[in-house]
């Protein structure tokens, strides 16, 4: 089981507590698809994604970014059993969506970059460490049911 200090719990809850999901969700997903274009593999039926401009304007991607970011709420509410909490989502990503689990880390890195842009100097090394630890645990949980 993952051990969380009070400081880590507080840092992570503070970030998500003041987060504008409707803004950051789309930004993080768009960044992932522009910086790591092979991730577009999973968005074949999302409409126009042929270049950065199309991705930036794409409403379906924006909406999906919000869905994905809210997916982290599960982990936030169940920090002491993230692995079990994500079992079903892991099966979904593995057996239905066939997402290569390496891509979870790419999206998580892009989310860290968006949070850094948002928080600027408040995104201290300790805050980054706590936030990335949280994302790493989610990424690991999402990959657990793959075989």
């Amino acid at each position, binding site marked *: 089981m993952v051990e969380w200090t009070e400081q880590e719990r507080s840092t992570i809850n503070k970030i998500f507590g003041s987060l504008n999901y409707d803004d950051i969700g789309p930004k993080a997903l*768009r*960044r992932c698809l*522009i*910086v790591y274009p092979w991730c577009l593999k999973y968005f074949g039926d999302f409409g126009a994604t042929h270049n*950065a401009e199309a991705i*930036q304007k794409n409403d379906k991607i924006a909406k999906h970014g919000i869905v994905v970011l809210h997916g982290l709420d599960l982990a936030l509410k169940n920090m002491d059993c993230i692995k079990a909490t994500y079992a079903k989502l892991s099966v979904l990503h593995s057996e239905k969506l066939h997402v290569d689990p390496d891509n979870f880390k790419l999206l998580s*890195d892009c989310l*860290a*970059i*968006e949070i*850094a*842009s*948002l*928080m*600027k*100097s408040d*995104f201290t*090394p*300790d805050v*980054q*460490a706590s936030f*990335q630890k949280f994302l790493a645990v989610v990424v690991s949980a999402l990959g657990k049911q793959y075989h």
Partner: protein
Amino acid sequence: MSLTDKDKAAVKALWAKISKSADAIGADALGRLLCVYPQTKIYFSHWGDLSYNSGPVKTHGKKVMGGIALAISRIDDMTNGLLELSEQHAFKLRVDPANFKLLAHCIQVVIASMFPNDFPPEVHVCMDKFLANLALALAERYR
């Protein structure tokens, strides 16, 4: 994923905006690396003080950014341009090349936090490619 002319132009344009703050970026990025990825401390255990913003971290952060500046000046052929640095990392420092990716991420986090309006995805992709190619050039002499 080699660098196109567009990538090189974007990296140089970004560098023009951020290079005045190179020392601060280097110190912040290196300090973050040691904090966020504590396994990297092994390469600096001889320093004593590995805390964020300590003297050795600041000094070495500056050196790292000097390496980045060198790479940008030799962006058309980083493999040959960085041979000496590659040999140093391979034979003397023995840095696991997997760590280059971690430092690249920290550098980009710092750029995003200090220059959020200058680091949209369209620029991030060029910088990420540049740092990935730099890492490859640094790993050239490993084996």
